[in-house]
């Protein structure tokens, strides 16, 4: 019994709804009829914005009045329909609100992240500023007034010192070389060589002088620092220099040697 009662209710509800829909549709058709009598106006090409804004103002005022007059009306009196409709609407509302909630959460999260990032950046900039301030202070302590004269004096004294040092070094080198690498005695070795009778007449130069000439050539002529070996160079000393890597032969001409590069 109760089942058919429910069925009957459903049928009633449906019929009622359909009737109400028909009623509303009739109203729509009446409005439409009134509208078709309205003239269609197009927007003038010259100043569309003004006319559109006026039109808009009129339409907005009309709508506003309509909203003022309107009272909320229940669409149907049937309770079943109302309940079903209510449930449906509440579900939709719930869904929309959940969407809004998640959007707002996401937005909040992003804002928080942005805030953190900006704060970090601010901190880094602060640190940078502090660091730079410190560096500036330290450097400003070292600021010394630049005076040309003093620079000149300093340079001069440096030059003198270096010259003195150079003299010292050269003297030391000369003494060392003289002491440990003397010229061979005339009477000792050369008498054995009969071939080199011509060479006896040539005065041998000391290792010191060889080194000096090599150094001078390297300094004065960097593009061609080769010294031609002539008879005045005592060959064992040449061999000594070559073997210890102090001098190098020229690649093509064995009679020329140069001082090895001692700088990088």
């Amino acid at each position, binding site marked *: 019994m109760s089942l058919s009662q429910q069925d009957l209710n459903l049928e009633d509800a449906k019929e009622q709804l359909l009737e109400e829909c028909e009623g509303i549709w009739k109203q729509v058709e009446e409005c*439409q009829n009134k509208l*078709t009598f309205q003239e269609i106006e197009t*927007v003038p090409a010259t100043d*569309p*914005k003004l006319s559109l804004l006026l*039109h*808009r103002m009129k*339409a*907005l005022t009309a*709508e506003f009045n309509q909203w003022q007059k309107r009272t909320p009306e229940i669409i149907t009196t049937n309770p079943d329909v109302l309940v079903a409709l209510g449930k449906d609407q509440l579900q939709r509302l719930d869904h929309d609100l959940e969407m809004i909630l998640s959007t707002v959460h996401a937005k909040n999260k992003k804002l928080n992240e942005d805030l953190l990032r900006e704060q970090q950046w601010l901190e880094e900039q602060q640190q940078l500023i502090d660091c730079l301030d410190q560096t500036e202070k330290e450097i400003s302590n070292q600021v010394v007034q630049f005076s040309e004269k003093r620079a000149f004096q300093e340079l001069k004294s440096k030059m003198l010192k270096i010259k003195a040092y150079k003299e010292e070094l050269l003297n030391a080198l000369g003494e060392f070389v003289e002491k440990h690498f003397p010229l061979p005695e005339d009477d000792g070795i050369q008498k054995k060589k009969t071939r080199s009778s011509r060479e006896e007449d040539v005065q041998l130069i000391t290792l010191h002088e060889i080194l000096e000439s090599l150094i001078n050539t390297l300094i004065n002529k960097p593009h061609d620092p080769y010294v031609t070996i002539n008879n005045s160079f005592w060959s064992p000393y040449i061999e000594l220099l070559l073997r210890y890597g102090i001098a190098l032969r020229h690649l093509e001409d064995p009679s020329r040697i140069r001082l090895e590069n001692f700088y990088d």
Partner: protein
Amino acid sequence: MSTLAAFGKLPTLNSATILLVGTNEIFQQQLAETILQEKQDLKINIHLADSLPLPPERDHIRPRIDLIVFMVNMQSKHSYSNIEASLVHVDASFFLGKVCFLATGAGRLNQISIEVNAVLKLADLYCSPVLFCELECEKIRIATAQRLLRMLRICAGHMSGVSALSFSSLMKSSIGDSSFLA
């Protein structure tokens, strides 16, 4: 009649119609497909047109248009002048929130033939919103389709309590910043 009427026909139940006007068919089809892919409980009709006025032969089978979207291709001056010519054939009631401008191709600034300011000015002149869209990028296309669908539902009256006019008044606040247009 040559002008497109806003309220000339009865609305069809449970459906909404959108009209895309533009010279580039490929873009229109792409956008139409993306719109149709969105899940809706509403029947969406999409009409594509080259320019207005619409041919009068099929006027009786055409449903009432709820939203007109004018698609301007920034890389072609032809589409811009075409749209300008079409705007004259539209009923003034459409501009109360049922018209939207869509500018495509503005991403490649070194290939545009129309200035962005010109499009913004045109939209401002007709009191309608402008959307910028890059149709090649899928995400932007889907997002634009969703926005258009929402506007369509409001314009077709399926959102109770919001009318096209009130909605467009809400949207105006972001576009009406005329400090953009020097």
